[in-house]
């Protein structure tokens, strides 16, 4: 794989409390440049929260996160620098509904990176082409399908030339027939060597692209390893239970 030994994301003993509830309990994870990590686990396991700690959307209660040498947290300026180096794709797309697809993508490059509008527009059009939506540049998000919206959201994140991309259940809110087009874009991205941390329940996708699968439950990492090992020969009971439930569910899904 195209990984190097240098971690681009390093989370050290990250703990996160919501009031009296401990959502993350001393989670440590290092992700190497070019590595693709897929995080799985039951809902409420803290995987989304962990992802949100990496770009500072959730401040950590204790521990530290360093992205590309920059500590996540501190002043607004530093947070902004970290965030522009980390692309994030949300479950509900979160496109700006009052802006066209093109404007959604241009906003960050113009306002944060200081690109000229022409330059940002060229970049945005290139990215729209890359996610297969050149013809939708001037559409508002409300007129795009979920799959198209998510692809625009991926382009929006890529427009910042991020060093790492975070995906928070990017296909969970999509109709089944729209999942494929989004995963295709993500596969493409993976093949280009992008560092990716993906929270997902798409096991086939995880098996395909992941260098490493992390299993989380109740705020801790219960198991990690290459996908073949995790999926075919899980070492912990908790992983086995989770996978059985998940495969049972998706098996039923296919039978329908």
């Amino acid at each position, binding site marked *: 794989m195209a990984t190097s030994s240098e971690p681009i994301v390093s989370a050290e003993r990250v703990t996160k409390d919501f009031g009296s509830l401990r959502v993350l309990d001393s989670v440590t994870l290092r992700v190497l440049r070019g590595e693709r990590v897929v995080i799985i686990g039951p809902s409420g396991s803290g995987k989304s929260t962990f992802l949100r700690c990496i770009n500072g959307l959730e401040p950590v209660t204790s521990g530290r996160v360093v992205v590309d040498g920059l500590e996540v947290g501190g002043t607004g300026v530093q947070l902004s620098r970290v965030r522009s180096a980390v692309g994030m794709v*949300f479950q509900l797309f*979160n496109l*700006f509904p009052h802006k066209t697809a093109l404007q959604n993508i241009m906003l*960050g490059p113009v*306002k944060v990176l200081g690109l000229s509008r022409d330059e940002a527009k060229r970049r945005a059009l290139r990215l729209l082409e890359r996610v297969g939506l050149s013809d939708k540049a001037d559409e508002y998000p409300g*007129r795009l399908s979920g799959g198209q919206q998510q692809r625009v959201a991926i382009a929006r*994140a890529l427009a910042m030339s991020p060093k790492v991309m975070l995906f928070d259940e990017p296909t969970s809110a999509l109709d089944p027939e729209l999942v494929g087009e989004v995963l295709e874009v993500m596969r493409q991205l993976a093949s280009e060597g992008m560092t990716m941390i993906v929270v997902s329940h798409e096991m086939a996708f995880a098996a395909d692209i992941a260098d490493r699968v992390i299993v989380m439950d109740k705020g801790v990492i219960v198991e990690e390893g290459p996908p073949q090992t995790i999926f075919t020969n899980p070492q912990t009971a908790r992983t086995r239970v989770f996978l059985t439930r998940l495969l049972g569910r998706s098996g039923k899904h296919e039978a329908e």
Partner: protein
Amino acid sequence: MNWAEMGLEIAYLLRGTQVTIELSLLAFAGGGVLGFTIALLRVLGGSDVTLVVKPLVDVVRGSPLLVQLLAVYLGSSVLGFSLNPLTAAFVGLSINAGAYLSEIIRGALTSVPKGQTEAGLAVGLSRMYVVWGIILPQAFPVIVPAAMGFFISLVKDTSLAYVLGLLELTRAAKDIVDRTLDPFHTYVIVMLIYFALCYPLSVLVRVVDRQLQHKGLARERL
């Protein structure tokens, strides 16, 4: 009463009407600036600001405007910088309008889904820009009709300024009644003047509301 006298009375009422309109617009502008500032402070400043500002807003919203006008007018002279009636009415109405408008604006800002803020922050935009460039434009279709509706009640509320001796429409009516001893005709005419000011506005609110909803829908998937 002959026609000439009647003409004079009407002219007197129209002068009062002019003051009512001016006061309404001034207080709406003042209240708008104040309301926006308070709403933005509360949304951007978080719980610390809210702790200080919210009680003030609550006190203003929880007490009668008439009392507030008297407090500003009479209070100012006690404190040694006596305001003239127009200024006192402007200040009192602006504070009152500011408190209500801040709640309208804040409510609209917080009604925008949280994911919008997160998406803005995630591309590295500042919190300030996120509120200004992403949240506010989406809150606008909610703010505009509600603020316009508030303006209509503000126009009517300016009548309370008559207790300060300000010669606005209601005060003009009272002066005329004192002279003519004909409260019935006078106050019916005054009611119709207020109605003539407010009704077109309420029609406008409906039109604007429909327009904004239509525009919002056009962006949604049909």
